[in-house]
């Protein structure tokens, strides 16, 4: 029984190792420091978004607005930076994300509406605001100090953006495991009615959960804007959908109430690794899409077996 659980938990790491081994065999450059740094950098935005998404999912919800909240944060932060300076601009990005999330959370919690539709609406709203603010055009006028500091520099050989994701992941793990808030996130996801009745302040903590997912979108904006050194007002929903796929791929139940950041990381790693490896080994773009789709389906089927 115990051994079985361990085998199940080891499945994704095994898949990761297999992919890596195959990749190295085909393309030895896969293991080059350059490529691993590249991989780690490419993984960062998805990881950050997925951590936020995971909070929403573990609470038994979903946040479809993450990518456009990210766009709004980026556009607003970059617009403000020339006036308020880089650090304040970065803080503004995070706060804007958090605020947008709190608005979704407020509507979801106070009116007890379905997160899917509320965040779908917020997707349009934040998208529109980003478009209006930026006049629709990407903002390339990003302070070089900011771009260098976050998108480009490295500390101890590891890119700053990777550090940011790492700190966020550790913080999320600690919050989920060792704080009252974390307990409530799981409890709300596991059985909302029971949580209400055992005295959890459901509205407040639901708002907080979407505040966190919004905050992660804001942090994603900080990183992504620096990385691509411009703020894009139009967000493709792909990033959001990928984050859901990554979270569930890692083995977090969509019904809420379970899962951990380590699983989210594994899910993100598998998706990013797949794409990196297929790029390195020259798999054509369309077959890449095919493989990702098949992997998602297989993973969710395997997950089913893992659970029973």
């Amino acid at each position, binding site marked *: 029984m115990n051994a079985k659980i361990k085998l199940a938990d080891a499945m994704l790491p095994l898949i990761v190792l297999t992919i890596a081994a195959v990749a190295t065999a085909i393309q030895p450059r896969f293991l080059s420091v350059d490529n691993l740094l590249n991989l780690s950098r490419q993984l960062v935005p998805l990881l950050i978004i997925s951590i936020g998404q995971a909070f929403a999912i573990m609470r038994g919800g979903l946040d479809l607005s993450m990518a456009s909240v990210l766009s709004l944060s980026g556009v607003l932060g970059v617009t403000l930076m020339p006036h308020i300076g880089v650090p304040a601009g970065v803080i503004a990005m995070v706060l804007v994300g958090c605020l947008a999330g709190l608005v979704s959370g407020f509507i979801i919690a106070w009116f007890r509406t379905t997160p899917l539709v509320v965040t779908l609406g917020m997707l349009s709203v934040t998208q529109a605001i980003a478009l209006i603010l930026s006049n629709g055009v990407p903002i390339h006028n990003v302070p070089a100090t900011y771009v260098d500091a976050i998108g480009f520099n490295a500390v101890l050989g590891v890119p700053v953006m990777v550090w940011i994701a790492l700190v966020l992941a550790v913080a999320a793990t600690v919050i989920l495991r060792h704080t009252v808030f974390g307990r409530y996130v799981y409890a709300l996801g*596991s059985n909302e009615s*029971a949580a209400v009745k055992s005295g959890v302040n459901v509205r407040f903590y639901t708002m907080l959960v979407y505040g966190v997912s919004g905050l992660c979108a804001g942090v994603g904006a900080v990183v992504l804007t620096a990385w691509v050194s411009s703020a894009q007002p139009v967000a493709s929903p792909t990033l959001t959908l990928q984050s859901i796929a990554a979270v569930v791929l890692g083995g977090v139940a969509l019904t809420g109430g379970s899962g951990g950041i380590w699983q989210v990381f594994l899910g993100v790693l598998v998706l990013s690794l797949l794409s990196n490896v297929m790029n390195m080994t020259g798999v054509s773009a369309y077959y890449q899409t095919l493989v990702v789709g098949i992997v998602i389906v297989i993973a969710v089927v395997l997950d089913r077996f893992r659970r029973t």
Partner: protein
Amino acid sequence: MSTLSLHAAPCGHTAAGGRAALLEVRGATKRFGATLALDDVSIAAHAGEIHCVLGENGAGKSSLGKVIAGLYRADAGVLVFDGAPVQFANPGQARAMGIAIVYQELSLVPDLSIRANFWLGSEGARLPLARVGRRRETPRVREVLAQLGVELDPETRVKDLPVTTQQLLEIGKALMHRPRLVVFDEPTAMLGAIEKQRFFSVLRTLRDNGIASLLITHHIDDVTAVGDRVTVMRNGRVVESFPMTGAIDAEHVLERLTGRRGAAAVRSPRTAPAAGESAVLEISGLPGRDDGGATVGVHRGGIVGLYGVVGCGAERVVRAAAGVQRARDFSMRLNGRPFGPATPAEALRAGISYLPAGRQANAVFPTRSIRENLMLSQLRRVSRLGFINRRRETSVALDQLRASAVKFADLDAGIDTLSGGNQQKVLLARAMAGASALLVLEEPTAGVDIDAKQQIHERIRAASRAGLAVLVLSSDLPETLALCDVVYTFFAGTVMDCHVAPAAGDHDAILADILGQRSAARPEQPRSQAAPTVNEWSLQAT
């Protein structure tokens, strides 16, 4: 393979005056992973007989029912129905043979009409796009509703009906196809005394029509009220099977169920509220019987029960105290101060803790560990600045589990690894730990076996002795009588009476109250059908 099952088998054959059994289960075995849910079980059901199945939680009663109804397939053993061996691949096949089941949890589709629910899965359609005909379906639905003695429009949506009616409909659904055998899995778990009597009368009608019933229950008074035969299960086996004769009373059944003499709870003397002491919770402005307002008070160290049929207004009071529902037409005072919590969180802050009815839906966190389920509403005690001190939490949790006599292996194992009874103990412990002033309990022992029930009662009494005020709402009248120091009866939103230190003798008076008849009129009351068999097993020491 045991002598016990050998012992059980002949009983089955000789029962009911030697008539051949309608259904015979021979040597049924069912394994779930490491658990042996059914271990060589043999049991027989006879036409025109109500056969009660008793046993502790996890004994395998429901599994047996599901095997009979075709939902599970036994790993070994045979079913003999009407003299011929049968095998069911799905519930539909069993239903076609005349075997129906009423599940422990409601299995109606809330969004569909009564008619659609009754016919669901048995439209007999070959093709998915076959028409369902209202004209074809309605007559049989009306027949069954008449049989149940309810007058309802078959097009009513089930979710618009009260739960008790839904429970009756659940039975109606089983009767749709003129079954010859009906398995009832804990149908009385959530029924109040009145609803129960209605159910019993349906059951007796079935018996009189020659239908065989298997009645799975935890309530001894069910057995004494309608049982013709009793089978006791333990650990997946049949340990005993005997016919109910006039000589067998509740105490006797209990003894054979638990294997202990004098197993019934010994009730310590009740503490009547000390005069002059002010109530922890005082509910006033409730409509009283004599046109005046009634006041319900819950005192330190006292256990107060509210009793009435579903919809009588007692739930309103309990839920208002717990903060689940706003008090609209009455007012509350907590320790003398006006009180009206908007949420359970607010009530909790005031020292009121709540254990709701419906474990699965409202109380347990099925995906979380025992630790997290237990500690959820008392995290403040083991955390600082929002961070949980795990070591302190562990020691608090272990203390509480020990005090509540929860059988568990690992604090961090999922709560779903516990049996229902043990889950209930954990949830009660959670509620008790959160309460500093008042403990509000709804159905504290629904679906829990007798042993666990007694342990839970003992915990509740201990809590009240330690100074808590306790407010209980239980549909189980014997439980209410056994547990409470004071019982307020409700009828149609009105407080009918207050029974201090109630004993079994108050049973009839309470029934009269909750039916809206003044207790003074008791002598003229036609005695309820169940009254002669009402047992006093849990009150004998008082």
